[in-house]
Every structure is written in C-alpha cells, then in structure tokens.
C-alpha cells in the first residue's frame, strides 16, 4: 500500500492557490519537498496530517483517506511542525512521557528510556527542556514522534536554524528511521542536505510541482558542466549554441554546457558582446541548487503573500 498518495490535491486561501493540483506517490523512502518561502510546503504537510482540509482533490496515508478516515491516518503518522514546540518547563523525559501516554503505549517508561537513548539524550533526560540547545530540542521532538512507531513521519524543516554538526546528527537519526521501514516526508530549504540524504525530491514553486525525481536524475537533466558567471551590474541575455541558461541569483548567472571547458571562452565573448561586465567565471559539476534555480526561477515570494499579510494587519487594527 502506498504510504502517501495524493491526487489533484489543491488548497486555496481566498484567491491565493497555495497548493495547486499536487500528485504524489511516496513509498518507504525519504522524500524531500523543496521550494522557496511561501511555495506551499507547510500547507501540503498540514493537509496530509489531517490538520487542514483541502479545497479539491484527495490524499491518503497508508490507504486511509485524510478526510474520510482521519483517525486512522493519525494512527499511522507523526508530525513535527516547523516551529519547535517543546514544553520548556518540563524535563525531556516528562515531555516524552506525555506523548507516550497520549499514544497509549503499554510500557511508557521503557519506551521513553529506549528512545531517549537512541536520540542520545539519556544523560540530559532529567534536565528541564529550556536548558537544551536547539539541536537537542529537535532530537527530543524526533523522539516524541517515534514513540508509537509510526509508518509515516512528517518533518517540516527539521534542520532549520541548526549548526552543521546538529544537522548531520539529525540526518543520521532520520536515516536510521527509514532503515526500519518508515516513510519520511520532509520539507527543507537546504539543497545540499536534500541532495545528500533524500531518496527523492520534489521541487514546488507557487504550489505546483516544478520537478520531481531522485537528486541524481534531476541533476543529470542538466548538462554535464555548470558555468557560473559573476557579473557587475545587470544581466543582458545571451544566446549561445552549446550552453543553456539556468538562472540568475544574487548577481551570478549560470549556464549548463555539455563541455564546459570549450564553452567557457565562447561564453565570455558572447557575454561581453551583449554588454555584460564579467567579473569572474567558474566551472563546476551541477548541484541540486542549479536544478532548483532552473525550475523555480528567481526566488521571490508569491504576490498573494503580501496581500494576505496586509489584510491580517488591517484585521488586527479594527
């Protein structure tokens, strides 16, 4: 049975289409949903975890429809929200015990001890969670999410705001979880992480899937080499045989080319002719960043966002 299956999943907030006809089929893997701010990642997760009703389409988790059998869905999932929610005035162990009891675990104490050990929190288990670092709080949340041995775990930006070491440790734990046959659905902004750890990624932009596949597949859709050019001033477009424009971000433009070494001088000339002021050029292998740039384009928040914020403000004033 497919762990996560959606058909035409759509969510509208007024005029804004936050998620637009999403079709997903995810099975025992780490699936990463990537997208710029406001592209609809959290909204997707909320619908899949029965916290938000969709406008159109359907979603099912382990064969249970999220609208028709939400209790069954909640039985087989865990959800860790984007904003960390740990009771800071409770110890790590007490936090865990609350979850173990809520899930009706038969031997809560043992289960909690076991998971605290797995997440390497045993020695701090009886300290108040307010003394924990960000990474520890995240691990505590992961431990809470594993208490009832869910089949699907939803993680909304599990590594945001953590340092490199903490991120690596979180990822090692997530990897261990999939070895036990769990499906992980996660969202992230970090392309390098997605590249390294996700089995498959989907890139969404304005609520629509722009690209989906294994990181390797997506990268191979670009040509062998990526040429990045740092420019002084505005970019004036160039057309060149053998090099394809990928995207522009923060004063650099990138191209893919079948043979980067040969394309490099040609590109330099073409750019100069078109009136660009080239500061530096470099050659490297494609990364998921390039895929992201190509499918999402310039990173900007959807228009509806401002309007929505504005209306919220007005609402507050009244």
């Amino acid at each position, binding site marked *: 049975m497919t762990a996560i299956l959606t058909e035409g999943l759509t969510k509208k907030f007024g005029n804004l289409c936050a998620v637009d006809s999403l079709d997903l089929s995810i099975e025992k893997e780490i699936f990463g949903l990537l997208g710029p701010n406001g592209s609809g990642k959290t909204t997707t997760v*909320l619908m899949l*975890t*029965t*916290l*938000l*009703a969709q406008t159109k389409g359907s979603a099912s988790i382990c064969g249970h429809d999220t609208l028709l059998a939400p*209790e069954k869905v*909640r*039985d087989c*999932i*865990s*959800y*860790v*929200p*984007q*904003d*960390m*929610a740990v*009771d800071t*005035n*409770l110890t790590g162990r*007490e936090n865990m015990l*609350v979850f173990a*009891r*809520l*899930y*009706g675990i038969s031997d809560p104490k043992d289960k909690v001890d076991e998971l605290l050990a797995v997440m390497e929190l045993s020695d701090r288990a009886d300290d*108040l969670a307010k003394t924990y670092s960000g990474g520890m709080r995240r691990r505590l949340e992961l431990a809470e999410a594993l208490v009832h041995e869910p089949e699907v775990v939803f993680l909304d930006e599990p590594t945001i705001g953590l340092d490199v070491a903490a991120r690596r440790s979180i990822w090692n734990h997530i990897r261990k979880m999939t070895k036990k046959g769990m499906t992980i659905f996660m969202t992230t902004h970090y392309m390098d992480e997605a590249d390294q750890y996700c089995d498959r990624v989907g890139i969404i932009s304005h609520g629509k899937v722009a690209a989906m596949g294994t990181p390797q597949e997506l990268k191979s859709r670009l040509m062998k080499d990526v040429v990045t050019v740092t420019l002084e001033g505005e970019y004036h477009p160039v057309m060149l045989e053998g090099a394809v424009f990928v995207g522009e971000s923060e004063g650099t433009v990138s191209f893919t080319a079948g043979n980067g070494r040969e394309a490099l001088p040609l590109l330099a000339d073409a750019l100069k002719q078109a009136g660009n002021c080239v500061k530096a050029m470099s050659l490297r292998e494609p990364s998921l960043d390039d895929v992201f740039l190509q499918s999402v384009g310039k990173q900007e928040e959807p228009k509806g966002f401002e309007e929505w914020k504005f209306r919220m403000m007005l609402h*507050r004033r009244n």
Partner: protein
Amino acid sequence: MKGVATYMYRDFIRWIRYRVGVISALVLPAAWLLFVGLALPVTFTGNYLDFITPGILVMTILTAGISSGSLLMFDKILGFLNKFLAMPVPRESILVSKILFISVRGLIQATIIIVLAVLIGATMMNPLQYGLVYLILFLFGVFISAFSTTVALYLDDHDSFAAFTAMVTMPLFFTSSALMPYDAMPGWLATIARVNPLSFAIDAIRDVGAGGVPVVPILLLFVFTAVVVVMAGYVFRKVTV
C-alpha cells in the same frame, strides 16, 4: 475520555513549575479575603465574613476561569495544538482537559479561602454543606472556563483576549451581590445584580450557608454550564477542521 488525564497532567506540571503563577494564585484570594473581609468596616449583617466569603470564592473562580482561554490559545500559537491534533487521541479531550484543569485549579484556590475564612472567624459548615458549595463552585468554574475558551478560540489573538478578560472581570464582580446584600444596593444596581451570573452562584452558596439546599439554582447552573460547554465544543470543532 482517553488523553484527558495526560493533558491535565501536562498543564498541572507546567503550572507548578511556574512559581510566580502558583504563588499569585494562592496569595491573591487570601489577600482579598483579609482586606475585604476584615478591613472593611461594614455592618450589613452579624458576621460580614460569612457574608463576604461566598463572594470571594466565586470571584476567585471567576478570575481563575476567565483567563483559562489563554491556555488553549498559547498551545495554538506555539504549535502544540497542531501536534496534539495530529495524534490519534480524541480531539475533544484537549478542550475537556483544559476546562477540567482550570476548574480543579479553581477548587484548590477555593479550599485555601475556605480554610482561611474559618481560621479568622467564619462559621464552620457541615460536610454536606461543603459538598454542595464545591458542587456549585465546580459548575460555575466549568461554566466560566468553557465560556472563556470559546471566546479565546473565537478571538484568536492574545491582546484582544486580554482586553476582553479585563473588561469582563471587574464590572461583573462589582455589579454582583458579592459585596453587599440587594437591599443595601441602590435600585439600579440591584436590578443588574439580580441578572448577573455571578450573583447567581454567590446567592446559591449563601443559601447553602444558611442551611438551605438550592436545588433550582443548581439545576439551572447545570443547564447553563451544559449549554456553554456544547458551544465551546462546537467552536473548537470549527477551528480545528
């Protein structure tokens, strides 16, 4: 209901750890009792302490209960609510646990007042009478906290809610029969006081103290409470779809 006890345990520990909150919750009613009960030179009745204690009791339940909406509101703002709602525990047990926790916490405060009142000279009642007093206070506590939770779910932001509680508490108290009997009030105040839900609970407790069993007020209180609880459940379900 499954989960209610655990949710209450969580709120209880959080309350206990927040020491200033505990102290103020215990000291405030005592201060009220001492200042109003002993310091005011009033001579409506023989024992003003016996007269004022029911008022202080209900006032305490009111202040404890009216702010209870913020408990659920903060769980919502801080993201706990979403975590809980994604669990296979009946969703209503979150609401029930908040209402029960606030009501029980109110009863703990009430106990302190009752003990203190007797220590400084109020008349001791028999166990059955105390049972009735607790029943009335509990019903009133559920009534207030369900009401406050409904408003909190509806208002959805903390500033408006704080303004709402401030607006409601004091006027309700001063226009009730808490501080003086109806015949000592100006006519307009007596009219307001008679329809004030606070007076309703206060009068019932005074009735118990005088040796009566206020069956009708208790039944009515029960009905009002049930209505508000159903309303809270309805709003809760609406905001958590």
